[in-house]
């Protein structure tokens, strides 16, 4: 593995190249901006986490005795808003993506470094406006802002919270734009499209969704604000509007937004599975194009949120069909990841545990998505805890597992230090166990009929809620442990070499932490993605074989 060893690290890197608050707040270095994002999204994650704990504590008993119903409604609304818009959507793209997209393609920075910094400021401005809305009195519409409740009936800070989300959307658009231009124009010599790590492909697909979808939610939120302030008659039936129109517009963005959360995570998992089994990814082009397929088909399935909303049953049929179609590219990915492990050399480092956990949980999350795409079942389970369990399996079991796996994987590169591996594995297992205990019982409660967003509930559902709350407590500890040891490791961790995992990717061919320009020389890429061994050695297995890669 000697050929992957990066140059002897110099003492100057992007972290210590400059000092002072100003050097961070005015930085144009994508790596520093990634760290700004990392700090900010972690802050929002813990705010959202506190709301989650309040929800779980309230639901421990059926009576609704801890919080008042108005408070509870605000708590679950704000949990959703913070987690979706201020943690999950920016999580991987804005931190790991920002840090690694240029490094993985051999570039010095993103195409528009100033716009990159601007996107962080916009994100923070959106965050501050939203925090203002929460502190001023909160918002109680649910993160979905369904009309006419949000436009006419809610007495909470809908416009302020909407403004925060509206502003934040621009940061998402700018990040997506930056990635697309960077990936198109700034690849190092020899870094062809089909040599790109799959992390890049998934970020490319994610960026498409960001720039095409986010404007729609921005328009929708503006319309809600206009309707609320001026009653212009878009959504309110009393003045000629259509409340269901809002749901169409909202889900036209918010369903693809799920793919903004999960696609980058899939990209991370592709990296982890290939690198920690020292194998080329099985079916590279299928995994790459399935990301694009998910991004494109993801725009065509929003109506599956409206099966019981009074939309035409024929529209329901079409959306059901398309939702099943979008399941296929996801299945392709899962099968290819599994096949990648075949005859690999698999290690069980912390990032790999997260990747394996991701596949396990994403399988359940994806399969339960089929229940919701099935018209006859969706009628019963929609708006129950079944759906709550399903999307947490995707968003937590999927997106957060990918995020934590990626964070551990690239932590030596980001911080220049190793995290304590024992604690890493322990907390990965703890999060896996806590996660399942939290959310699996909710599938059962949901099919039994427990509606979501209930502050008090019939006593027969209590057993499932007690299990959930117990699991959430374990999950909370599981999240706190990495927060502590990662911070600890920045000062006390073992110093990381440039390539601690012995991997061929470009980001490992420079020192840790990298210099501000990422590479001492512009790299010239002469190898395929995940090329651990020469392609001449490629093994053709069994009856199912293709040609050996053309590179031979």
């Amino acid at each position, binding site marked *: 593995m000697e050929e992957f060893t990066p140059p002897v690290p110099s003492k100057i890197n992007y972290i210590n190249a400059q000092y002072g608050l100003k050097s961070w707040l005015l930085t144009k270095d994508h790596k520093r901006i990634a760290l700004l994002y990392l700090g900010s999204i972690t802050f929002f994650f813990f705010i959202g986490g506190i709301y989650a704990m309040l929800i779980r504590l309230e639901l421990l008993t059926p009576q609704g005795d801890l919080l008042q119903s108005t408070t509870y409604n605000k708590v679950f609304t704000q949990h959703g808003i913070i987690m979706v818009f201020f943690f999950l959507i920016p999580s991987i793209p804005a931190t790991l993506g920002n840090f690694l997209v240029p490094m993985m393609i051999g570039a010095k920075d993103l195409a528009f470094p100033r716009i990159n910094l601007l996107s962080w400021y916009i994100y923070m401005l959106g965050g501050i406006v939203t925090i203002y809305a929460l502190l001023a009195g909160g918002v109680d519409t649910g993160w979905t802002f369904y009309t*006419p409740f949000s436009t006419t009936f809610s007495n909470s800070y809908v416009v302020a919270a909407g403004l925060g989300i509206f502003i934040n959307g621009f940061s998402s658009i700018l990040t997506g734009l930056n990635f697309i231009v960077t990936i198109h124009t700034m690849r190092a010599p020899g870094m062809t499209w089909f040599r790109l790590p799959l992390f890049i492909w998934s970020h490319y697909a994610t960026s498409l969704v960001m720039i095409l979808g986010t404007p729609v939610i921005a328009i929708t939120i503006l319309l809600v604000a206009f309707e609320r302030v001026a009653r212009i008659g878009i959504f309110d039936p009393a003045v000629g509007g259509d409340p269901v129109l809002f749901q169409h517009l909202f889900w036209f963005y918010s369903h693809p937004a799920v793919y903004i959360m999960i696609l980058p995570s899939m990209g991370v998992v592709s990296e982890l599975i290939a690198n920690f089994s020292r194998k080329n990814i099985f079916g590279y082009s299928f995994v790459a194009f399935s990301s694009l397929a998910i991004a494109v088909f993801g725009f065509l399935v929003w109506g599956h949120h409206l099966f019981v909303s009074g939309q035409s049953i024929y529209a329901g049929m079409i959306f059901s069909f398309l939702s099943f179609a979008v399941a296929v590219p996801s299945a392709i990915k899962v099968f290819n990841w599994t096949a990648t492990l075949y005859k*690999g050399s698999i290690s069980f480092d912390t990032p790999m545990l997260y990747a394996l956990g991701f596949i396990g949980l994403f399988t359940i999350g994806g399969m339960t998505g089929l*229940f919701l795409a099935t018209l006859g079942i969706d009628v019963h389970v929609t708006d129950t805890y079944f759906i709550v369990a399903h999307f947490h399996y995707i968003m937590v079991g999927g997106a957060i597992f990918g995020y934590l796996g990626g964070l551990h994987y690239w932590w030596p590169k980001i911080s220049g230090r190793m995290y304590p591996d024992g604690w890493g594995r322990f907390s990965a297992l703890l999060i896996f166990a806590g996660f399942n205990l939290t959310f699996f019982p909710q599938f059962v409660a949901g099919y039994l009929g427990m509606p979501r967003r209930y502050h008090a509930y019939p006593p027969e559902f209590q057993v499932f809620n007690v299990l959930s709350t117990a699991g959430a407590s374990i999950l909370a500890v599981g999240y706190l442990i990495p927060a502590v040891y990662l911070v600890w490791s920045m000062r006390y961790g073992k110093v990381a070499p440039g390539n601690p995992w012995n991997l061929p990717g470009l980001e490992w061919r420079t020192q840790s932490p990298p210099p501000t320009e990422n590479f001492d020389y512009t790299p010239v890429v002469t190898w395929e993605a995940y090329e651990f061994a020469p392609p001449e050695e490629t093994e053709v297995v069994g009856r199912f074989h293709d040609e050996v890669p053309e590179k031979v």
Partner: protein
Amino acid sequence: MQTPWIPFIPPSASTLSDKVDALYFYLVGVTIFFTLLIWGVLGFFVIKYRRRNRYEIPRPVAGSLKLETMWSVIPFIIAMTMFAWGAQVFFQLWRPPANAVEVYVVGKQWMWKIQHTTGQREINELHVPVGRKIKLIMTTEDVIHAFFVPAFRIKADVVPGRYTTLWFEATKPGRYHLFCAEYCGMNHSGMIGSVVAMEPTEFDSWLSGNTSQQSPAVAGQQIYTTLGCVSCHGASGEGGRGPALEGLFGKQVFLNNGQTVVADEGYIRESIVNPQAKLVNGFGPIMPTFQGQVSEEQLLQILAFIKSLQSETQPTTARPSGPVPGSSPAPAAAASPGAVNR
């Protein structure tokens, strides 16, 4: 709950609930199969191919178009079976049978107001006979709610400004949960109640114990008179300066813009609250709006009255193209709802 508790499955008490459960079991089976398959293969690989030596580099493995095709096509075919079966059950859930007894439901923050065609009113309770098809015609006075009866596996949003329908036929007597499933504000979780399914004989005696209230059709006629509708549409809906209402329900209406619409519940409601939206051919825009002057319940009562005009003149409902198969057996049904079924 009178029905025995089966682990992880809510009581199954309608003609459709077993069909939904069968579909559910199919998906659970497929899910367990694929989850175990993937977990099994994953577990097998990570153990068998675990790293035994720090320096080992496995040989690359070539991709396989055959495998890719296989694991794209097979999941797609399985998904299509789910789609087809799911759509088939869905159509049964959404297509109310023609001979269903209508019940009016109005959602309101935070209660369910229910009126039977025979006049009985209930709040947060719905009494229904076992073995008869019931069709709910629902709307709301304020925000979107959703009428959800887990034991019947049915749910539909209740949307302001329009009517949505649900139908079911209870199979087992019992008291079942009724939930509001669409978040509707402060006391959303208090917008709950019960559906009480009773043996038909019990139901009839329950009905006869609650006969003091007038039927919605009669109440609707009073509102019709009070609001002055009679001056243009005639005392018994024979028409005049306004279009005739007799026999209108379910018929095709020719509009002055050349289009035709079917006079269903939604059209009649719209013609009351926003009369200029669809003008009947040959009539001018002279009708004032009644938006804000009639409550949703009163609108449903006027609707019941207009429907009753139909069956007085036309005992058998002949409908040229009726996508809304809501039958209106009143007032014959109003007198003895037991006669409606079968």
